[in-house]
């Protein structure tokens, strides 16, 4: 259906809109179904028709059916304008990327692939952390920011003040796992409320018994990421309810290996970190199923590739890259890289042992990006975040 898709020529960015594409077929992107009930696309169908120019039309129809299943249909009609097949040959230039250490392995793999294909393009990827990366992104120092959380209102404002606009592209899914020692046999499941009681500032929880009466009366040793990480930001926002609100007497480390080693070594340890580190540590520690008790009818869900990818697991979160819009327009190599990243997203995620978003998402997103219709990719991966910037 969508095979043999040939990228348009990148010699003149503006030509892309009038795409010399050899596709005369309408592409239908099928069911993006199975999303958990966090969908809020409105009850009725919304249709959006955009004319790209040069006789091409794109129609986006979104419908939500009863039972939580969402359907997004993207129809694209192209007319063949010229029988010119252009494959981007020479791409050169520099791309500067910085940001989250969680997203970094994905971007690193994507950059390496891309540089092998186009040796004249030079890509550097930094690991300053989500916030540290945004610090540079909002003043235009970087082309892409890797982010393990959406951009904050404050960061968005600074960007606007500096005339920077961005394209938000989800690239994979991560989750936060709550882990305990292998010898811990009593914890079967945590609810979000229990986790909040445990981790909130000035928490009075010292022993397992403080959380649930039937649990042992032994003190808990807590492990977690430091306050300077996107993982910490997400956890406090999602579980405690307020950004960076957390008790301070836990063992903090930015290095998830240390957290694993810490929890592994103490019977009464409890920690949280990104799901990406869990598969390698599976035989050393135990991940606890989590139940979102604020949502009626929810169950204790065990974190796994399947539950994380479909947002069934309550502590799932998308991983993003934020692309500088001005540079997107000006640098063909940047545009090509982002499209490459998204188109090969599933493959890249698998290679670095991360959880990919559903394949249909990557296909749809790649198509939209190529047509420069990049608003709404966030909705495509469907999650809410109340402290975030404009969507």
């Amino acid at each position, binding site marked *: 259906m969508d095979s043999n898709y040939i990228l348009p020529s990148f010699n003149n960015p503006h030509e892309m809109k009038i795409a010399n594409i050899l596709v005369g077929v309408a592409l239908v992107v099928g069911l993006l179904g199975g999303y958990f009930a966090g969908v809020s696309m409105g009850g009725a169908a919304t249709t959006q028709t955009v004319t790209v120019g040069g006789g091409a039309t794109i129609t986006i129809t979104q419908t939500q059916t009863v039972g939580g299943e969402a359907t997004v249909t993207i129809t694209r009609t192209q007319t063949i304008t010229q029988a010119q097949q252009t494959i981007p040959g020479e791409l050169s230039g520099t791309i500067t990327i910085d940001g989250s250490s969680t997203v970094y392995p994905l971007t690193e793999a994507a950059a390496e692939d891309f540089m092998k294909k186009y040796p004249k393009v030079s890509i550097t990827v930094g690991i300053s*952390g989500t916030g540290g990366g945004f*610090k540079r992104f909002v003043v235009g120092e970087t082309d892409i920011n890797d982010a393990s959380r959406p951009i904050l209102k404050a960061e968005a404002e600074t960007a606007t003040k500096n005339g920077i606009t961005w394209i938000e592209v989800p690239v994979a899914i991560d989750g936060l796992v709550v882990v305990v020692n292998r010898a811990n046999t009593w914890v079967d499941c945590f609810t979000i409320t229990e986790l909040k009681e445990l981790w909130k500032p000035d928490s009075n929880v010292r022993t397992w018994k403080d959380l649930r009466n039937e649990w042992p009366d032994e003190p808990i040793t807590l492990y977690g990421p430091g306050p*300077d990480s996107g993982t910490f930001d997400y956890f406090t926002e999602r579980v405690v309810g307020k950004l960076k*609100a*957390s008790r301070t007497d836990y063992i903090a480390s930015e290095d998830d290996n240390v957290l694993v080693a810490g929890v592994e070594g103490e019977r009464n340890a409890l920690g949280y970190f990104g799901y990406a580190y869990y598969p390698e540590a599976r035989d050393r520690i135990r991940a606890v199923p989590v139940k979102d008790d604020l949502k009626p009818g929810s169950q204790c869900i065990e974190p796994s590739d399947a539950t994380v990818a479909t947002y069934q697991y309550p502590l799932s979160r998308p991983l993003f890259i934020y692309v500088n819009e001005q540079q997107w327009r000006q640098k063909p190599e940047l545009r090509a890289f982002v499209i490459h990243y998204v188109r090969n997203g599933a493959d890249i995620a698998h290679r670095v042992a991360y959880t990919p978003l559903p394949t249909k998402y990557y296909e749809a997103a790649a198509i939209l990006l190529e047509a420069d219709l990049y608003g709404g990719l966030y909705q495509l991966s469907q999650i809410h975040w109340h402290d975030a910037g404009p969507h």
Partner: protein
Amino acid sequence: MIAETVARSIRRRRQQNKIFTFLFMSSAMVATVTLVIIYATLIYESIGFFQHVNVFEFLTGVKWTPLFEEKNFGVLPIFNATLITSAIAIALAAPAGLASAIFLSEYASMNVRSVVKPVIETLAGIPTVVYGYFALYFLTPEFLRQIIPGLGIHNALATGLMIGVLILPIVASISDDALLAVPADLRFGAYALGARKIDVVMRIAVPAALSGIAASIILAFARAMGETMIAAIAGGFRPVLTSDVRQAMETMTAYIAQVATGDAPHGTVEYQSLFAVGLFLLIITALLNFVGLRVVKRWAIKY
């Protein structure tokens, strides 16, 4: 004729002298200028910091949580951690370093010395990142945890011990030099009076070299306080006021590293806090150095 040539060459040489004196003096000034720049930067940002935070609260508060939602700015927890880790370090380095120095200067043969001295100097050359990870992944789990139950994966003991190994060469090297500088006459005089070797060493040489030895210990302590990577990797990022060395505690330098490489945007009080902590640390180190220099001057025995 000859007088003229000589006069001209003398004048040329005097000019050269002046130029080079000026050049060399400028080089020597670089250290001072750099210090001025460092202090200026720290003070400038600290002024911004202290507009938000009360100096008294900073110096006496017992909770340090600038990066969390609920901010407290008492520096005592991280200052305490710095002191504890440095104390452990010097408790290791001073005796071991002094013992090594005495061994090298008084007992070792030339052959042994030529092997052992470079080995000790190598200790100072090992990258601190390596020490940090060695402490975290080897010293604590494989070694310390077997003898001390309840030892956290990050703990002050391993941090202090590792820093101690790092600064050992400072004590050893400088004390060795100080001991070697004690004139032979003093020693021979003692032997002539019937003293045994142990008397000569402990009662003559060491006291004579005491000012150098003391200076080396003070220098080593200052270096221990300023050590960053070992404290960050093996000590962890938990600011807590405690005397339990089995726990993780964040030192001042680890905090500076955490903020400098972290998310805090420029101009915020979180970012400025790193400068305030840095200034605090620098002032204390400067005081230590000042005391050290005075001690050396006073106790130095002139031969």
